[in-house]
């Protein structure tokens, strides 16, 4: 440049440099790349939100959507251990259903036999809280007047590969409470157990079981059998009295006919009495021990895992990969839905800013 003004010559140099920068930017790709990190961040956040929303165990607030967890769970899990590695948040660690502490199944195992001794700690904690009214102490307050049979049902989802741990922990909890496993049925990576625990330990046991995984379903029933119990007790007393009278009459009987007649009556009463005593014993047992039906299921459908081991075909792997990808995508889209209002707001803000910039320039 032939200008004799140095400022203009310098400015030309500066413009040349700007041209070089511009060329580099053009070579480096479109301006869209500038937005790539932001878009990636939004997608990751959306996916996280989607995973949280789809996994009811992660946040209890979303309990309303529990019905769809069968899909959501497998979506979050990605179907196999491989995708879990890529997406570690896929299987959020179990959160406490209630109570202040959170123990994962792993912790439960780490305590090992401690589940037995650990139980007492919990029982004591619970005894201090007003929600537990079935402690021995308060039970005496009601005396034998109130007879309630309590039953519970719980369905737990646990992280893949932890079914065995969860089962062991559940058994330990039941036994630690002085109960036992009445029956169990295990099928692959899922199982159903019937636990019997002392009635006064029902609440703490339910609480502890709930900590083993994501509670999909929890049900507690109380059947008041007080009236039936009182009735049976009264009849038992009457029959006892009648039996005693018959026995006295038998002792005083003089004829064989009389004796035979009274013997028949005695047997009749005795049979009735035994039947009623049996019913009373059954009721007492039912009241004294609660029944809990516990289902434990791993997040991933058991059949799929089985197939992976038995038939590791490339086609299957490909299909499962695609399915996993679609699941992740679906979760991200759900999350985007939640983010939509925010994204719209940000878009409007940028739009206004851009428009103002343009107006100022023109």
């Amino acid at each position, binding site marked *: *440049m032939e200008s004799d003004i140095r400022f203009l010559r*310098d*400015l030309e140099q*500066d413009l040349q440099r700007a*041209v070089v920068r511009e060329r580099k930017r053009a070579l480096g790709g479109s301006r869209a790349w500038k937005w790539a990190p932001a878009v990636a961040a939004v997608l990751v956040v959306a996916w996280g939100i989607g995973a949280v929303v789809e996994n009811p165990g992660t946040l209890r607030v979303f309990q309303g959507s529990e019905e769809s967890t069968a899909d959501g769970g497998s979506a979050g899990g990605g179907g196999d251990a491989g995708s879990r590695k890529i997406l570690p948040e896929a299987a959020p660690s179990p959160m406490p259903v209630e109570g202040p502490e959170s123990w994962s199944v792993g912790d439960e195992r780490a305590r090992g036999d401690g589940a037995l001794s650990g139980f007492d700690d919990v029982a004591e904690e619970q005894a201090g809280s007003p929600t537990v009214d079935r402690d021995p102490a308060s039970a005496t307050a009601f005396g034998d007047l109130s007879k309630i049979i309590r039953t519970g049902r719980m369905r737990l989802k646990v992280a893949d590969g932890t079914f065995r741990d969860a089962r062991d922990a559940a058994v330990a909890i039941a036994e630690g409470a002085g109960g036992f496993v009445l029956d169990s049925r295990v099928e692959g990576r899922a199982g159903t157990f019937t636990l019997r625990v002392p009635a006064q330990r029902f609440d703490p046991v339910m609480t502890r079981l709930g900590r083993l995984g994501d509670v999909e379903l929890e049900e507690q029933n109380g059947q008041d059998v007080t009236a039936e119990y009182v009735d049976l007790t009264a009849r038992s007393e009457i029959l006892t009295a009648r039996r005693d009278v018959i026995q006295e009459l038998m002792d005083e009987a003089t004829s064989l006919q009389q004796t035979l007649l009274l013997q028949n009556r005695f047997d009749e009463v005795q049979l009735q009495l035994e039947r009623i005593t049996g019913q009373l014993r059954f009721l007492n047992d039912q009241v004294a021990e609660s029944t809990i039906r516990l289902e434990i299921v791993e997040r991933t459908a058991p059949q799929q895992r089985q197939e992976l081991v038995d038939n590791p075909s490339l086609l299957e792997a490909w299909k499962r990969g695609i399915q996993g990808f679609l699941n992740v995508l679906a979760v991200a889209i759900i999350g985007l839905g939640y983010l939509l209002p925010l994204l719209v707001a940000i878009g409007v803000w940028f739009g206004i800013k851009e428009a103002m910039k343009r107006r100022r320039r023109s």
Partner: protein
Amino acid sequence: MPDARSDTELLLASRSEPSAFVEVYRRHADELLRYVAGRVLDPEVAAELTAETFAEAFASRGSYRDTGAEGVAWIYGIAKHQLGRYFRRGRVDTAARKRIGLPERPLPPEDYERIEELVDLEPFRAALVEALGTLDEDQRRALELRVVDGLPYTEVAARLACGEQAARQRVSRGLRKLALLLQERGLQPATEVTS
């Protein structure tokens, strides 16, 4: 080797070939600086406005459309817009230079005189003398010595008993105030430059 393309062609080409813009700059930078200096009088402001104008043109060369007029008219349009903003706000924008990464350079000392030489103060010397009365003592003295008496800066500095660069700055600031003042009174400091 001179580029045979017209300004319009260069500006259109610069969208995908940014170096074409530099050619436009080479052709018109001096003239634009003269045009701006004739309006703001102050060499510092004139240089800054020129830089900002070309930066703005470079940054928004993508929005240039061939309207049939000479391509350079578009750049003068941007300059006018910048001038208007300068007169309204009393300062030069830096947004466009920042956007394309141009550094803000101070005016080299030797450029003060050269830019002043570009401006023909003759047409409004009368208004100038009148406007001088509204300036600070320092700035008025400097302006009188430099503009009215036409002394070189070495002499102006000697008379004011200050450094040469300080003298330049006093004249520069005085001219800046003067231009703003004349603008306020509706007196254009210089006649329209035809390109």
